[in-house]
């Protein structure tokens, strides 16, 4: 679950705060878990909700990011395979807050853009556009990191 929190947090300290809050909710609401799904999935959902709740109090920020000028599309995934999970998580963590949330919720958690829009209080179109930007930026970062690593 620390890995889940790391993807939503900007740094390790914030991730550990999320993990603590999340587990307190898990313990407090453990009786409500009805064994209808996997416990891991339920706990993961709580963690994600904790992360979402954390940004509800603050306005979600979509600072401009460098989308890159290349039209590169990662299709053979060799760059992804060469990087460790931790490296990728750190790259995601470096995304600005709004992009990071949209990217995580769509690409990793499997939310639809409508669900993301409802959860984060943004337009569905915004979710789509921000995701596209985040994806391009992340692909660029992955390629750059892979190149640096191979050198």
């Amino acid at each position, binding site marked *: 679950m*620390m*890995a889940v929190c*790391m*993807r939503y947090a900007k740094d390790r300290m914030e991730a*550990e705060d999320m*993990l*603590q809050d999340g*587990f*307190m*909710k898990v*313990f*407090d*609401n453990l009786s*409500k878990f009805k064994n209808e799904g996997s416990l891991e999935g*339920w706990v993961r*959902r*709580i963690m994600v*909700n*904790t992360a*979402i*709740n954390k940004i*509800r*109090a603050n*306005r979600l920020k979509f600072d401009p990011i460098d989308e890159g000028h290349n039209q590169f*599309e*990662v*299709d053979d*995934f060799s760059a*992804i*395979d060469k990087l460790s*999970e*931790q490296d*990728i*998580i750190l790259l995601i963590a470096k995304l600005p807050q709004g992009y990071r949330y949209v990217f995580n919720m*769509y*690409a*990793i958690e*499997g939310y639809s853009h409508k669900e993301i829009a409802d959860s984060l*209080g*943004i*337009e569905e179109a915004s979710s789509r556009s921000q995701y596209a930007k985040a*994806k391009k930026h992340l*692909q660029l970062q992955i390629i750059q990191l892979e190149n640096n690593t191979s050198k």
Partner: protein
Amino acid sequence: MKGSFEQHLSDKLKSAEWQASDQVLNNILDRRKSKSKPWLLWVIGFAIISTTIVLIVPSSKPQPLQATAEQSSSSPSEEANTLNRKQSEVVLKSTSTKDYAAINANKVKKEAAAKAELSAVEKNKAPRGKQQINRPTDQLKADNLMSDAEMPLSREIQTNKPSPMSFEKPNRPASSNAKYKDNQKPTTLAQDDQKWRVKANMIKVLTTENGGQLPEFVAQSSKGQSRLVVYNNPKLLNEHFELERDFLYSRAALIKKVKVLKQFEDLNHVNAQKEYALNGKRPTEDIIPKAVYFDLMLMPGIGYAAVNGNADLVAYNPEIMHVQSGYALGARLSLPMRNALSLTLGVQSKQQSNLYKGGIHYRTNEEAITSTTYYINDPVQGVIPVVVYDTTKYVKDNVFALNHSNRYQMTQVPIGIAYQFGLGKTQFAFHNAAVLNWVSSASGKQIDVQQQSVTAFDYKGKSFSVGGNMSLLAAFPLAPRFKLFVEPGVQWFKIKAMNMGNNFNEAVINYNASFGLRYTVF
């Protein structure tokens, strides 16, 4: 449709692991420890109550002395018993205040009688083991039940260790009770000894007039809310060595004190209890008055209005304060049943208010219309203003300040059973009841976080439900017929008004503490 990039990334990251620092685990454990554990309170409460019952409530099975008399009638010490039968003194006293003067007068009288007996014994110088103390007839009149000199034997007396008094055991003949006691009943002796120690601790609390000396427990009996304790009086036994020995090994029980908890028992009841304890003669029910109680109750209650809801609501909970408060006014009648059980029937009017306070953050899509005015210089018409309207869509942050109460008004009829226990002046009772609830009104606001709507509801329809109540009563005497009681408990009810489509459904468990006045009807 998600591309293979997302799928590949998702597969890779879902198996990712990241080690949290040990400090996080410690923080979680610390926060868990600091949180209150209501179940732990219940466990502790149950343990305390169970221990209290075990320590305070004595065995309610009476120990008729007549049966033991028959068993031991063929014992080798029959001769000694015959000699000692008439030496017994029985004093029956109630502990009610009005009887204390009589108790003291009787005590002085008996001490004088004992001294007279000693003088007679010394004068006669009868051989040891054959001496007979002839008590004056008028002294024996004090015992209205045992003056026939056919004092039943008590196994307790035979097998119990002598009361913890500082005197030496006299040398007994081979056929004495001492040898019988030591050789034939070792197991019973050990058991009785242990039993005696428990009882002695209990009696020590009850005894106030023996100068702190522990009495020798003889027998006890209980019926309903009353209890009869019979024991030897060490004060009388200490006056002379011979007298001590005679009393110690006599088969006569000296009834020194009758502890009666219920304040309005008459002497017939006490006598009947003594008969029951000594002779196994069960008293008829009609001479055993049992108390009928009438309770006036005020039940304030405050607690945490826990909510139920789906997993999404978990995220909202920390932002909202939930306070549950309320009170109930009512009356309850307690009617005696078998033993210490009573049937309780009550009626009470209950009002409950669940307060929700805090802020709910949500966003709305808004449109702003801005207007810009341009001016055109027309050669013919002069300056013409042109207004251009522009519609801008934006997302607005909203904070809904939540501050409202859901209120319920209901009439409750608890029907249950109470188990009464305790030996001191303070009465204790377990109350368990089924509670019939009639909701007369319910009002509040319906919060739908997902729809970001808050609408008022006013539930006027009547509804009925069945709940439960469990409480522990402790009643303290105020006046002869009045007691002040406190009764903490937990109430369970689920009424329709709690689930009026509200995302925040009130918890079905309510903690409360009743305070009230108990009146003993008769």
